[in-house]
């Protein structure tokens, strides 16, 4: 039980408060123990990135196996996969930032301009659907629709005479970046628009009325009222998405990537999984993963600090 307001005036010792909060504190500490095991203990496991580790030596092996310094880090940086996976991770993230970030904003604005509340509701509901669908189903849809044998898209394009030879959307490495970006947009556009839709809904309606009386056109109203009103939200969301620049979409890379487009689809995450858990090079893969999470955490805290400084809002 909490101390109530009457007791606050009296000087109550920490011990007495703790006694009153016995149940709550037990719950919270229970949660802490859980996190200690499942989140903080693996952080200790990062040690294997600096060691020669065999999985057969178990948890004890994390401490007892031989130190090897930065060997794995050097091997990754000077190895032949480094440029490929780092390039792919960064290019895909930047494409996401440049294309998949602004589209939900445009969608939210258009939705706001749409007449007819029933249809509006339908568009909104439909647009959320792909967010809840797994990447497995999405990749399954891609393999059926874009296949170069019998795929609907290729068949249609050929029937219309737009192309003469089927496009190898799924297997041509050069088309992978476009495929990855467009599936990302398709899947998350509606979901990412939620926050902008809400921001637009919060704009004071009298602003639009006044502008209308002054003879502003609809485009002018969007440009001078809607956009400036949601500028803050846009800036926050943009800065925060900078934090995930080196993360990449693991599921997408594993599912839409295949042997034929590997050179363009392999990202750091999928590489770590493959090298570590499929080839059992735990020590080397930990080193690669550790480098990535280090950069990632720096980006998150950096972008968060930026956000707090310039727009006064942060994640925590």
């Amino acid at each position: 039980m909490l101390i109530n307001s009457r007791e606050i005036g009296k000087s109550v010792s920490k011990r007495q408060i703790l006694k009153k909060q016995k149940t709550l504190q037990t719950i919270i500490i229970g949660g802490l123990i859980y996190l200690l095991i499942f989140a903080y203990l693996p952080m200790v496991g990062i040690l294997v990135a600096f060691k020669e580790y065999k999985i057969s030596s178990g948890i004890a092996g994390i401490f007892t196996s031989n130190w090897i310094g930065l060997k794995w880090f050097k091997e990754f940086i000077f190895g032949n996969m480094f440029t490929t996976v780092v390039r792919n991770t960064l290019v895909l993230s930047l494409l996401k930032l440049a294309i998949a970030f602004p589209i939900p904003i445009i969608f939210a604005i258009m939705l706001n301009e749409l007449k007819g509340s029933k249809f509006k509701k339908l568009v909104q509901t439909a647009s959320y659907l792909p967010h809840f669908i797994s990447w497995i189903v999405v990749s399954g849809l891609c393999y059926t629709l874009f296949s170069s044998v019998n795929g609907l898209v290729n068949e249609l394009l050929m029937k219309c005479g737009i192309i003469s030879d089927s496009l190898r959307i799924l297997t041509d490495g050069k088309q992978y970046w476009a495929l990855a970006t467009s599936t990302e947009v398709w899947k998350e556009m509606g979901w990412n628009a939620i926050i902008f839709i809400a921001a637009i809904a919060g704009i004071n309606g009298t602003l639009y009325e006044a502008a209308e009386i002054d003879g502003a056109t609809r485009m002018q109203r969007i440009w001078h009222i809607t956009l400036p009103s949601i500028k803050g939200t846009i800036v926050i969301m943009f800065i925060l998405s900078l934090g995930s620049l080196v993360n990449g979409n693991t599921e997408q890379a594993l599912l839409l990537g295949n042997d034929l487009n590997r050179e363009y689809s392999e990202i750091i995450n999928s590489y770590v999984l493959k090298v570590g858990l499929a080839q059992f090079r735990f020590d080397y893969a930990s080193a690669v993963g550790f480098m990535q999470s280090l950069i990632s955490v720096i980006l998150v805290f950096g972008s968060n600090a930026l956000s707090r400084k310039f727009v006064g809002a942060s994640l925590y």
Partner: protein
Amino acid sequence: MRSAKRKRKKRTLEDWIMDSVILVVMVLIVIVTIFPFYYCIVQAFNNGIDSTLGGVYFFPRSPTLDNFKTLLADAKWSRAIVISVLKTVSGTLLGLLVTGIVAYALSFEKVLFRKAYHKIYIFTMYFSGGLIPYYILLKSLGFINTFWVYIIPGMLNVYFMLIMINFYQTIPQSLYESAWIDGANDLVVFIKIALPLSKASLATVGLFFAVNQWNSWIDSVYYVTKDSLRPMSYLMMQIINKSATASSVTNAQSMGYAASALQSTTTSLQMAAMVLAVTPILAIYPFLQKYFVKGVMIGSIKE
């Protein structure tokens, strides 16, 4: 909008153009979003061999339930469906219980050391030991190759916890106070007062937990080797990989599987599986829409 009603202003040329452009774009968005699913349903209900001839777009040409029958008759698939349902139900319930109760405890402003606790919890959202040390941990704890590897490691989700904390904080403390005066302890207050009042947050976070569980497959690929523990999503991944390799060979002759004696092809089975995977989500999420929209808003940013 209100002023338009009052004055019934004549629509300008700009209005006409903008309204039509927006309408066309929105209709296109709905089609592009919905059609792939519709196409998938059509294929799932069409005879598999007939589909390989092409040209089945809008309606099944040779309607059949064979694909579903073949799928469900396969012991591997029926077991996978059971595993998927079990892990979704137990994962959601346990997740809601654990995440919910910790969120409740942390939602009180006056809890001692609250700030420090928050920091320790939130740090885990941004930094992790990485996949490999995590795997070593699961292995040493004996979770590898058990059903619990799907459930226990995800029970306490810090992101969902933050959403729930924000919800709990909207419950006025005065509602709790009368119970405390009656001498009820915090657990009783949680069950009798906080839980019934937080239906919206339970619906939101419950949906998130359920969708995560229903869709997850990476855990099964890397943490499980027993076939009896495979969920539906895993089998689907396998079948999609199979048809992906088939489609990656451009030569039409490689479509050899179509010539098998079965009336279902790998692709048509895949379509049926995808319909089974999407249906429960499609049946639930529109009804929870008003809740999760609020949940996303509250969970995303704290000003």
